[in-house]
């Protein structure tokens, strides 16, 4: 008898408590973490695909909500508060639930699919009809799994069975909701909670509770779902199913882990454009999957170090190494065909074969017995027939191909035959590849132990060329470098045009280059500034004075110029320039223009009123006592 006195959560009443533990699957799914949750939910969505030419879209969201917005939360709190643990594990879990149910703000995660069928027949409520998938999903557990072993024919159908418990396991209070919108735009909300058998108000109840309405029909109680009138995150307005997990456990609240789980398990579905996954604001689709896989934020990129996770290798193998011939694998009574993708690479330290279902979900990193450390990587994808058979070999959580769960003797030995033959077929490929890459006869590969290194030096030529703009828009290439006379001669012979737009040979470069002003802009507003190449400068330091000569007779830029200012900037050995450090007025007593015999003016860092005579400037600079005679300079000319 079920208690229907206005409680939104329904628990079937029982005579007495017989089982004091939580559903065993909870612990197992909890152990698989984000990976298990993501796989179960996305797989369900893929199985419900609606179009051949459009990908199933799964939107995964995590967020925060008010605990009071969880439908029927008061009912749940009441139940959880009376749970009693009879062993350590159960006690601990109940204690954890008791603490978490007190929170006001909680985290949730949801999986919403689009381009999918959604569940059907919700309006029929609890039925045993196979076409009413709502009834199966909402009110049954383990519908598929336990039944399959008994029949040779029956292949497990859709996977809406044990998988749902993966979502319960992700909730601190083992609760999950499913929000459905069907082809007739009917919207329903259901939910399940996994507690332990318990007493409430003098009545014993089962461990599983359903968020559902119920009606009495001909004396029997029948569940009918609630119409979905709830707000975000429980709303589902487009056709398809949405799973909502309130009280999300901290361990599952991990965007990076979700992204990786999606890529690890569904890279084939995504690359085949059968699936697109949105994780909060990140989208993974056929066009960008490889970006995620090649991102070292998510995956180890060095092939040598891939020892647990092989996804980057699988993706490479799948995209770039298809094998023309199908892999044929026999069981006792059938031959199954697989598409094979195979890569051989000496750098690989763990050899694995990704076994992929037709929908594109990876079942297992299959180890071929005895070949787990061979340098290969492979992906096998079954055709429909093979897929159906593989499904029957999957363990409950779809993560391993094995015969352990099969109890029928014939089926078990058939499965063994099949798995051995699959191994054998892959082995043959590995052996062939090894043969091919390790010829018995021929030159031995010793290139990384026996070799000579040839190092060549190169002359540091024209290393820093940059274009310097001159006022009227023509470009000069500033050529820097230490090219020697010898090379200059060679170049001159070849008549090459290496020095830039002007087409002049390097040793005929214009001795001036236009220089943009740094900092002291005022001056440059009125005057053009040129830096000089050292080859145009002769500088000679004598006891108490120095002679400075510039020869610009080759410069077109200075044609017609009769007067200029000379700016001095100190330069150190590494080429670093200190433009404002040297003041001429405090270091020189006087500056004499040797062309005219006149004194020039000394003003801060420049010598002004210097006469230019046919491009030649000649100065005598008399030192002050304080002058540091070992300084080296770069000179700038400023011209009106």
């Amino acid at each position, binding site marked *: 008898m079920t208690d229907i006195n206005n409680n939104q959560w329904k628990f079937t009443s029982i005579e007495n408590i017989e089982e004091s533990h939580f559903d065993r699957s909870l612990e197992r799914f909890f152990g698989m973490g984000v990976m298990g949750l993501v796989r179960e939910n996305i797989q369900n969505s893929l199985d419900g695909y609606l179009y051949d030419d459009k990908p199933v879209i799964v939107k995964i969201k995590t967020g925060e909500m008010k605990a009071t917005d969880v439908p029927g939360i008061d009912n749940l709190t009441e139940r959880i508060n009376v749970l009693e643990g009879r062993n350590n594990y159960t006690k601990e879990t109940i204690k954890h639930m008791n603490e978490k149910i007190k929170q006001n703000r909680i985290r949730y995660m949801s999986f919403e699919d689009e381009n999918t069928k959604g569940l059907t027949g919700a309006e029929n409520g609890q039925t045993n009809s196979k076409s009413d998938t709502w009834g199966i999903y909402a009110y049954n557990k383990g519908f598929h799994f336990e039944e399959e072993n008994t029949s040779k024919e029956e292949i497990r159908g859709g996977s809406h069975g044990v998988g749902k418990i993966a979502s319960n396991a992700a909730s601190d209070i083992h609760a999950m909701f499913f929000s459905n919108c069907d082809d007739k735009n009917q919207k329903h909300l259901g939910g399940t909670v996994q507690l332990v058998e318990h007493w409430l108000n003098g009545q014993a109840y089962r461990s599983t509770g359903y968020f559902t309405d119920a009606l009495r029909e001909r004396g029997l109680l029948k569940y009918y779902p609630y119409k979905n009138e709830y707000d975000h995150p429980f709303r589902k307005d487009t056709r398809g199913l949405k799973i909502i997990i309130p009280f999300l456990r901290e361990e599952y609240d991990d965007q990076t882990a979700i992204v990786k789980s999606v890529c690890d398990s569904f890279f084939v579905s995504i690359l085949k454009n059968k699936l697109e996954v949105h994780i909060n604001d990140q989208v993974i689709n056929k066009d960008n999957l490889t970006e995620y896989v090649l991102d070292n934020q998510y995956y180890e990129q060095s092939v040598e170090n891939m*020892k647990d996770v092989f996804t980057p290798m699988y993706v490479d193998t799948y995209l770039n190494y298809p094998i023309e011939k199908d892999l044929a694998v026999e069981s006792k009574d059938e031959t199954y065909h697989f598409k094979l993708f195979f890569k051989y690479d*000496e750098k*690989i*330290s763990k050899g694995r074969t990704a076994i992929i279902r037709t929908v594109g979900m990876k079942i297992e990193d299959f*180890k071929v017995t005895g070949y*787990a*450390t*061979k*340098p290969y990587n492979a992906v096998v994808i079954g055709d429909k027939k093979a897929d159906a058979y593989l499904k029957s070999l999957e363990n409950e959580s779809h993560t391993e191909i094995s015969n352990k769960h099969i109890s029928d003797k014939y089926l078990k030995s058939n499965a063994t035959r099949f798995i051995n033959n699959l191994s054998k077929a892959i082995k043959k490929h590995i052996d062939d590849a*090894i*043969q091919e890459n*390790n010829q*018995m*006869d*021929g*030159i*031995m*590969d*010793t*290139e*990384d*132990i*026996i*070799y*000579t*290194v*040839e*190092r*060549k*030096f*190169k*002359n*540091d030529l024209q*290393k820093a060329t940059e274009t310097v703009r001159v006022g009227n828009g023509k470009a000069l290439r500033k050529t*820097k470098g*230490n*090219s*020697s*006379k*010898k090379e200059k001669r060679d170049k001159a012979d070849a008549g090459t045009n290496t020095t830039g737009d002007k087409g002049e040979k390097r040793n005929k470069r214009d001795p001036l280059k236009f220089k943009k002003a740094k900092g002291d802009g005022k001056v440059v507003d009125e005057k053009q500034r040129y830096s000089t*190449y*050292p*080859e*145009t*400068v*002769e*500088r*000679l*330091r*004598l006891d108490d004075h120095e002679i400075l*000569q510039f020869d610009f007779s080759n410069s077109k830029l200075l044609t017609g110029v009769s007067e200029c200012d000379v700016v001095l900037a100190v*330069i150190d*050995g590494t*080429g670093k320039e200190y433009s404002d450090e040297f003041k001429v007025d405090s270091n020189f007593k006087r500056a004499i223009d040797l062309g005219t015999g006149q004194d020039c003016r000394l003003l801060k860092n420049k010598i002004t009123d210097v006469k230019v005579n046919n491009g030649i400037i000649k100065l005598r600079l008399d030192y002050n006592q304080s002058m540091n*005679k*070992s*300084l*080296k*300079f*770069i000179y700038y000319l400023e011209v009106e």
Partner: protein
Amino acid sequence: MIYKKDANFPYPILSNHAQSYENNIFDLDVDVMENNDTYRFTVKYDIGSDFIKQLITKKKARILLIVQSKDSKFTELEGNEIEINKNRVSLDQKTSLQLHIQALSDITFYDNHDLSRFYDQFKDDIKVNKFNLLAYSNVVTFDAPYKKPFDLFEKKLDENMKTDIKIEIGQATINIFYRKPEYQFHTLPKSQYLNHPYIYIGLTKALQQFIINNGEDGEVEIASVEPISELENKLLDLMKSKMIEELTVDNIDEVIHEITDNVIEKYVRSIEEMATNGD
């Protein structure tokens, strides 16, 4: 410190692009050889001034080789070869080299006839102090090193052999015969490393043969060898490039150490790796 940027010195300096000297040439060209421990630089240079050359001959100036990678390293150049231990300098594409000529005493320039005309009237007054720079060359940098492999070994399968393994010194290669395919470890990853012990034995045999063919009293002076086969030619090239000068019955292991790159360590590491990765 390497002079990479143009600077105006307050006295005449010889460099490829200062105009103080009429014949302003100071060219540098470098070759390098290396073995496991040492770089050997062979330095060729061209100085355009007899005055400067004379100063060097008279020990009034000296040539310094500057090797600059992370730190600068100065080494006096005598002759044209310099050996530098690999643990003191490491060469990469950022390494630059330059030659400097440094005054070892105060130098007067009155008899320097190589200067440009500008200095004619001042020559008598020019004096460069002890330890100052007289000249600097162009800068050379490394290109990416090129590894040239040597095909020294050939393997062969001979299932009719009486022995499990046999090493023969051929005309052009050292040949290793295996009686069974699995002796080549051909099904294991990194099988080439697992064959390193055979390679070591092969080299030992080949070098012994080399001594027998070319040596006197069990000693070979590498520089004077005239190889009689292609294989000997290869071995000779290899030893020369690794700066081996002498091969004797006693130093065969040392020679193998120099001409190979960690042959034993690579073998050991691949075994360790297999042990760690094994399931």
